[in-house]
C-alpha cells in the first residue's frame, strides 16, 4: 500500500531533506511540501536537486521510489481575494490548498473548481465549519477536505477535546455525503511526524474504520494528483486533447 | 435570457456553422436529398436564434415557402423574364422573383462611358 502525505510545511533546503528522510523511514511514500506564495519561487529552483540527493541516499532501501511535489498554500481574508489569488497562481503550480477558518471563505472554496483542497475548515470556529450545503457543493466540484493530525498533537486539555469533537462531526458528514476526505500530518519539524499505523489507531477511535481510512490516505490523494497532471490538456470539464 | 444583439464571438461561430451546413447539404443532395433538407432547417434555426443573416452565397439555394434545398436543373428551374430572375421550386410550384435592375443600369452606364471615351480619342 502506498501512503500519501499532502501537507508538509516547507522550510530551508537542509530542513526539508531531514523531514523527508525521517518521514520515509516511518513509511510514507509521497510528499507534498507547501510554501507561501512569496517563498515558492525560490523553492521551485532547487526541486530537482533535492529529489536527486534523496534518491541517492535511499537507493539501498526496498521501496526506493518516492514522489515529490511542491505546492502553494494561500490565506485569503474574504471571497473576492480568494478568486483573485486562485486565478493568479493556478497556471504556476500544480497544487493549491486554501486555509479555512471563516464561513464565507469555506463556502467560496467549496464552490470553486480551481482549488484542490480546503485545509482545516474548523480553525478558530465554535462549530466544525462544514454543513450539509457545503458538503453537497464539495462533491460536485471535487474539492477535498483536509484534517490535520498536528492539531491534535500540539493542543491540550479542553481545546484538544473540542477539536476531536469537530473531527467526529466531519467524519459523520463524510459517511453520509461521500465527499473526498484527506488526512495529513501538518508537520513542520521531525518531532511532529507519526507513522500511518499510529494515525489509523487514533482515527479508529473517532469512527473511521480501516477500509475508509485507507481511502483517505491512498485513493482520494491519488485521484487528485492524476487529475492535476491532466489539467493542462483539459479545456473544460469533460473535453480533453489526446 | 438577454434579448437583442449577441457578442461578436457567438456571431462568428454561427456564421461558420451555417457555411458548413450548406456546403454539406450541397454535397449530400445527389445521394440522399432528405438529409440536405434537414441541414437547411438546422441552419435556419441558427440564423433565427442569433440575429444573423444567411450567407449571401447560399441565400438563393433554398425555397422560401417549403424551405427545401434547391439544386438547379434537378430540383428547380431558373428563367429570366421581364427584368426578373424566376426561380421555380418543383416540389411546391412556388416562384421566387428577384429583380436585376441594378445590374442592367450598370451595364448601360458602362456602355455610355465607353462611347464617350471613344469620341474624345477621335477628336
Amino acid at each position, binding site marked *: 500500500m502506498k501512503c500519501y502525505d499532502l501537507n508538509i510545511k516547507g522550510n530551508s533546503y537542509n530542513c526539508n531533506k531531514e523531514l523527508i528522510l525521517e518521514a520515509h523511514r516511518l513509511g510514507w511514500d509521497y510528499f507534498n511540501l507547501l510554501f507561501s506564495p512569496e517563498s515558492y519561487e525560490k523553492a521551485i529552483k532547487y526541486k530537482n536537486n533535492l529529489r536527486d540527493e534523496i534518491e541517492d541516499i535511499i537507493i539501498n532501501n526496498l521501496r526506493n521510489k518516492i514522489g515529490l511535489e511542491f505546492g502553494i498554500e494561500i490565506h485569503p481574508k474574504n471571497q473576492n481575494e480568494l478568486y483573485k489569488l486562485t486565478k493568479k497562481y493556478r497556471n504556476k503550480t500544480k497544487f493549491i490548498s486554501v486555509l479555512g477558518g471563516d464561513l464565507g471563505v469555506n463556502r467560496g472554496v467549496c464552490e470553486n473548481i480551481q482549488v484542490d483542497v480546503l485545509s482545516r475548515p474548523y480553525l478558530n470556529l465554535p462549530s466544525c465549519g462544514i454543513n450539509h450545503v457545503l458538503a453537497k457543493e464539495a462533491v460536485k466540484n471535487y474539492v477535498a477536505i483536509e484534517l490535520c493530525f498536528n492539531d491534535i498533537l500540539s493542543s491540550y486539555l479542553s481545546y484538544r477535546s473540542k477539536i476531536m469533537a469537530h473531527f467526529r462531526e466531519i467524519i459523520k458528514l463524510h459517511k453520509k455525503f461521500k465527499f473526498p476526505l484527506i488526512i495529513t500530518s501538518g508537520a513542520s519539524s521531525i518531532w511532529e511526524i507519526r507513522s500511518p499505523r499510529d494515525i489509523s489507531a487514533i482515527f479508529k477511535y473517532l469512527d473511521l474504520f480501516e477500509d475508509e481510512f485507507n481511502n483517505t490516505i491512498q485513493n482520494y490523494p491519488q485521484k487528485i494528483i492524476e487529475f492535476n497532471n491532466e*489539467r493542462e490538456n483539459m479545456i473544460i470539464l469533460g473535453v480533453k486533447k489526446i | 435570457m438577454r434579448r437583442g444583439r449577441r457578442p461578436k464571438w*457567438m456571431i462568428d461561430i454561427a456564421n461558420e456553422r451555417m457555411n458548413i451546413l450548406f456546403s454539406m447539404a450541397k454535397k449530400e443532395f445527389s445521394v440522399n436529398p432528405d438529409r440536405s433538407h434537414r441541414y437547411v432547417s*438546422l441552419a435556419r434555426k441558427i440564423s433565427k436564434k442569433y440575429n444573423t443573416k444567411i450567407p449571401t452565397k447560399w441565400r438563393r439555394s433554398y425555397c422560401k415557402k417549403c424551405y427545401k434545398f434547391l439544386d438547379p436543373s434537378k430540383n428547380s428551374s431558373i428563367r429570366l423574364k421581364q427584368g426578373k430572375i424566376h426561380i421555380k421550386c418543383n416540389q411546391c410550384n412556388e416562384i421566387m422573383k428577384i429583380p436585376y435592375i441594378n445590374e442592367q443600369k450598370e451595364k448601360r452606364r458602362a456602355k455610355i462611358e465607353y462611347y464617350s471615351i471613344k469620341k474624345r480619342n477621335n477628336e
Partner: protein
Amino acid sequence: MITSKNVFYHELIGLYSKVVKSYNEFLVGINGNIIDERKKTISIETEKGVKIIPKNVSIFHLLLPNGEWVEIDGKILVNRPEDRIKKKYKKL
C-alpha cells in the same frame, strides 16, 4: 475554424467519430461520420447502416479537420444543437 478550444460550441455534423465508452456495451466501437444531431442523440453512418447513439451515457473521440483528436464526454453535449453556442461552461 474548428479547433480544440471551441469544439463544444461548433458544428458536429461532418466530423469522423468513434464511440469509446458507453453504458450499453454493444455500442462501443462504432465509428463513422456524424450525419445528424438531435437533443439527446447523435446518429452515425457506418458500413452496416445508420446507428443512433444516446449522448448522456457515452464518451466520444472526434477527429478535427486540422488533424487533432479530442475526447468529449457526452454529458456536456446534451442540448439542442442551436442552443449549444450560448450555454455557459465552467472554466478550469
